[in-house]
């Protein structure tokens, strides 16, 4: 018998009752299915394998080894000197040593091709908070941000929910490997104008989620030019920058700015985090790097709502300023991710499935459009349901990423062991065989 929950008579806000949190979309529905029947190597071999979560578990051993050998990082040293100051430290500037460590880590990831000033780093509890914070700062309620599709489904919630800002998509398609073109940007801008929305910025993710590919230098130049022409901001979410399979293939917007002598830099802001590259999403560590003094000041003040635990800052300052550790980590992590990528691409190819050529990230962008009954969103979702319920794999349908072409799916490969990945590939293979026969 259903339990009647008496509706509270006292009202809630529009934010509280809004559906902008998006948790009713397929992106999250798949997670529910996984939660109800999670795969386990020994105890639940027929469960759903989670391939919808972009988490990096391939390099935990490196982190554990560091912590094992450096107890001062997690204990402030014998007798805990410095503990008191650390426990009291709630300055929104953040620990200087940690900002320096982050700046240097970001430089290492970019092969030293860009320099980062620790005083321009604003710390937030995760990139989710960083993106929301920037949106609060760069746009007013009712304004718009342009975002190339396909994009991370979480943006719909993170950038719009409390801020009241709109997202206008820049449509990209497979005809040119989903690259962002000036025509597409202009079309999106016009589209926003026709809806009477003031465009305040363009937000790119580089390397891209869900594409798993870096943005080319020429495209970055065009995007920056576009932002200058329209006098809007450019936010570059570089959260996967350390997860490129080869260090030379990632070009940061910071490098473009450097070659331009930092002209027009005051409109550029970079978001980074340790959730993907370092596999530490539970630590809640994000940063905003802005070339705009006013944005730095404002973001710092706003970060009061989302400070990083000083204990965590201390731990990571120790870890990341250890050059031996950080260099080895970046290199090894890249190699392992590259290996995983090769493994999944090969496995999918054997099953007759093609993917977009990728070079970064914790996922690949898989093309199942040949399997669709009709090139429509409905067909894509029907196929997604089959894969979820029959093949027992949770993958993310392109429509939840606002992809304009149906049939694409994001498949994560770094949040499981190699054995589990093998099992997943076997299931896909079997599924494709069955379809061929029918």
């Amino acid at each position, binding site marked *: 018998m259903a339990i009647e929950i008496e509706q509270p008579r006292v009202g809630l*806000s529009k934010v509280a009752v809004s559906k902008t949190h998006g948790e009713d979309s397929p992106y999250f529905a798949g997670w529910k299915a996984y939660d109800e029947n999670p795969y386990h190597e020994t105890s639940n071999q027929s469960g759903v394998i989670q391939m919808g979560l972009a988490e990096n578990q391939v390099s935990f051993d490196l982190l554990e080894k560091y912590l094992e050998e450096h107890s001062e990082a997690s204990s402030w040293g014998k007798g805990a000197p410095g503990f008191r100051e650390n426990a*009291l430290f*709630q*300055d929104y500037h953040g620990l200087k040593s940690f900002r320096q460590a982050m700046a240097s880590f970001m430089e290492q990831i970019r092969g030293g091709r860009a320099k980062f000033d620790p005083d321009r780093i604003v710390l937030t509890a995760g990139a989710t908070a960083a993106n929301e914070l920037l949106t609060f700062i760069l746009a007013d309620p009712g*304004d718009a941000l342009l975002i190339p599709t396909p994009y991370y489904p979480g943006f719909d919630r*993170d950038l719009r929910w409390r801020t009241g800002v709109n997202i206008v998509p820049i449509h990209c398609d497979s005809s040119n490997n989903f690259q962002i073109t000036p025509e597409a940007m202009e079309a999106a801008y016009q589209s926003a104008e026709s809806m009477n929305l003031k465009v305040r910025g363009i937000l790119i993710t580089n390397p891209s989620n869900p594409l798993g590919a870096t943005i080319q230098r020429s495209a970055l130049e065009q995007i920056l030019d576009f932002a200058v022409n329209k006098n809007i901001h450019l936010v570059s979410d570089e959260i996967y920058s350390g997860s490129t399979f080869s260090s030379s293939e990632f070009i940061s917007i910071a490098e473009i700015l450097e070659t331009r002598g930092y002209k027009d830099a005051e409109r550029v802001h970079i978001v980074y985090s340790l959730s993907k590259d370092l*596999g530490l999403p539970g630590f*809640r560590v994000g940063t905003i790097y802005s070339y705009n003094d006013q944005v730095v000041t404002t973001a710092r003040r706003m970060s009061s709502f989302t400070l990083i*635990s000083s204990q965590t800052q201390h731990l990571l300052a120790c870890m990341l300023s250890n050059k031996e550790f950080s260099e080895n980590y970046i290199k090894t992590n890249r190699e392992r991710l590259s290996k995983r990528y090769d493994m999944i691409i090969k496995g999918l190819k054997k099953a007759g499935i093609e993917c977009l050529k990728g070079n970064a990230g914790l996922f690949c962008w898989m093309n199942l459009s040949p399997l669709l009954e009709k090139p429509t969103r409905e067909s894509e979702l029907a196929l997604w349901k089959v894969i979820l319920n029959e093949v027992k794999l949770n993958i993310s349908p392109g429509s939840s990423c606002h992809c304009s072409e149906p049939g694409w799916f994001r498949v994560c490969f770094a949040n499981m062991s190699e054995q589990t990945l093998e099992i997943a590939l076997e299931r896909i293979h079997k599924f494709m065989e069955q379809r061929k026969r029918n």
Partner: protein
Amino acid sequence: MRLIVPLQGVVQGRGGLIFGSLIPCALFYFLQLYLKRHRSPKPQSNPPSPTTSSPKLAEMTRTSSRSNLFSRSIGQVRISSRAISIAKPNESPYYIGLDKASEDPYDRLSNPDGVIQLGLSENRLCFDLIEKWMSENLGHSITGRDNGELNINGIATYQPFDGTMELKLAMAGFMSHIMGGAVTFEPSQMVLTAGATPAIETLCFCLADQGNAFLVPTPYYPGFDRDVKFRTGVELIPVHCRSTDNFALSITALDQAFNQTRKHGTKIRGILLSNPANPVGNLLSREMLYAILDFAREKNIHVISDEIFAGSMYGNEEFVSMAEVLDSEGFDKNRVHIVYGLSKDLSLPGFRVGVIYSFNENVLAAARKLTRFSSVSAPTQRLLVSMLSDARFIEEYIKTNKRRLQNMHALFVAGLKGLNIRCADSSAGLYCWADMSKLISSYSEKGELELWDKLLNVGKINVTPGSACHCIEPGWFRCCFTTLAEEDIPVVLERIRKAVENTTDLLNSS
């Protein structure tokens, strides 16, 4: 008309060279003046802040160093109106004081002439206990050595954004203990946040729309201005309390403020209380809690009770939580939300641990989703589960903390009394609310700020002026005494005496 005739003259070549040149010049000048007035304000440029390790104010926003406002090339790219108001340099004396104190901090041995910080409600009295616990227990409590194996997996991966069940259980137990065991807290009704600051903001986002308002008794914690207003667009309507009844809240005043606000077309969505109160340090009695709940029911609004100082009691009065009252009577629980945190009672503001405790399922559902923007860091969660579950340690800590608080409070208040400065009656908090109105030259905010300035620059002590807390009576100052050692108290008193000795002479001679 008068302009046209000379112009005609110019055109027709009469009398006109002077007018002919004067008038266009004048028009040009006025055009420039008009453009200058109507140009959008050039944003203040602050350089990247010099890195100081100055303690952050839990209470208010800060500005970067005021001393170097050189203009860099600022882009013409615009930031939001929300941001523009936040970016403005904050001229509040509160910040100036904190900057001064952090630039020249007092140290008994190495900097005896430095500024003594009494403006930050931090509790330094019991760190020795926590440090001892750390050195005895820290080995495995962060990285979670299970069976001798280091396992970072448990804390590295995505955790529930609203906190792990282990920590919620531990917090529920701690909160209950702190409040004398009079109430039990349900972990399932808890949402953990990165400090009490986002707890307040998150609740505001859930309970009110932009343009709505909360009633808040004055004087109040200056940080509420930021927490409530910065990003939510919700207003705070002060409900003034007076020294004649020791700054107690009155339902009449609440009612008046409610009606006034409604007349102006603003919707009141709730009342924001701190209990124990900051900056006064008094408690809400059981009867007053009932009265507030009745009022809230009558007006159909929410009640947020910030109980962050519940474990910082030094008086003999009994602390009664809103939760306790709800347990016992048949009040509508859906409108009550409690905020808590570990920054005050456990002296761990840097670790960012706050709590929203609500009885409203819909608020909990929304708040849970919003914690993705302000979650507690996983290693910190693990450390605290360890610490809070150590019943023996917590018992000792709470007892010792209370004893030391009582001691410092008694000494400090007695010291002020010796200077003829009386304090409001209070039972809790890390501060006392001192009446220095006899020492100000004019009974006004201006007079109060002059005294504040003298105390800071002559006396070299930083205290919080009542105006920063929206107190309607001038001359009151919040003095935090928990950052001091006993030996520092006579130094503080001497400095106050020195700073005001001319004033008292003045007063005596007039």
